[in-house]
């Protein structure tokens, strides 16, 4: 029996849209709680000692212009160093998180199951946004394959996780457009399965950078911290 036949079989289809949904959400939520506490336990709160400046001011003060001029602030940040990649990565990551929540099909499923639904993007918008995510993923793939500095630190896991992140969008795109209509059951099974695998992988694999970024950049004091962190490693 071919793999595609097994995957589109009723048994597998029922499993991925039934119990595996619950299993993946439970693993994701418990794993997230565990890793968030683990990260927080690695850091501790430290009181900031405010030093008073002595006679004469040696420390250059941030000018008012630097505080309020957002264009200047952007140029001084990582955006100024690599604007193209920052736009691509921001689009990719923001859409990766919000798309599954606000896509119409998912909200219909929510409505069928629990009688609740959230705001949903119009189908045309969701389609365009999906294409943007796929293009961003392709830009990442191009960097991994052809840009020297990225190639130097790329291993097989980077390709695997890029594929895992992009797979729900690629299969979702095919399912929406009925591209392989004769294999629709297979495509939708792969769509659900890849989404669930990704969800389960988030707390325990490279995807952990999602929590790492939020917790460490927001709470730990450092030159590049975002906000008023009062923790130290």
């Amino acid at each position: 029996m071919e793999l595609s036949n097994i995957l589109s079989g009723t048994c597998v289809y029922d499993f991925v849209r039934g119990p595996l949904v619950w299993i993946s959400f439970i693993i994701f939520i418990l794993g997230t709680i565990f890793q968030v506490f683990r990260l927080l336990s690695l850091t501790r709160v430290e009181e900031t000692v405010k030093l008073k400046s002595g006679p004469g001011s040696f420390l250059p003060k941030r000018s008012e212009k630097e505080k309020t001029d957002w264009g200047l602030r952007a140029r001084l940040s990582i955006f100024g160093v690599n604007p193209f990649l920052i736009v691509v990565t921001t689009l990719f990551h923001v859409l990766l998180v919000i798309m599954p929540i606000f896509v119409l099909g998912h909200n219909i499923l929510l409505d069928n199951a629990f009688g609740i639904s959230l705001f949903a993007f119009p189908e045309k918008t969701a389609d365009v946004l999906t294409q943007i995510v796929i293009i961003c993923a392709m830009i990442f793939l191009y960097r991994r394959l052809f840009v020297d500095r990225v190639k130097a630190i790329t291993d097989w896991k980077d390709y695997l996780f890029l594929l895992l992140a992009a797979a729900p969008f690629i299969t979702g795109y095919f399912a929406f457009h009925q591209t392989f209509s004769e294999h629709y059951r297979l495509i939708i099974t792969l769509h659900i399965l890849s989404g669930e695998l990704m969800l389960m992988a988030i707390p325990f694999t490279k995807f952990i950078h999602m929590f790492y970024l939020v917790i460490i950049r927001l709470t730990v004091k450092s030159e590049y911290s975002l906000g008023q962190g009062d923790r130290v490693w």
Partner: protein
Amino acid sequence: MFRKKNTAGVDSDAIREILDEKKTKMKLSLKACAHCTLCAESCFLFMGRDKDPKYMPSYKFINSIGVLYKNKGNVDKLDLGEIRDIVWERCVLCTRCYCPMGIDIPEMIALARRVCRSQGVYPRYDQE
């Protein structure tokens, strides 16, 4: 790639002891690195060496402390020599490296230095 290791003169247990002290933080940090290379331009040595990827902060910690954790401390003098070149010759611990995730790169380099030093592998400026 897979050469036979000659671990003579290396105390792997002592290395493991040092690695275990910071295991959780280091392993999480190595895992959190998305290999995005946004750290590259923050390293003045990278900028000064014609943007050679070998000077990228992420390249430096992956190939030093990353190798030590990957091999669980089972490294030989040749490995340690390579790590020494990375953590002393290609990094001055200026601590200005930027990481979008907030990974504490200087501490990783410093820990790799500590491991090397514990095995008597460090630059001898008086002899070289």
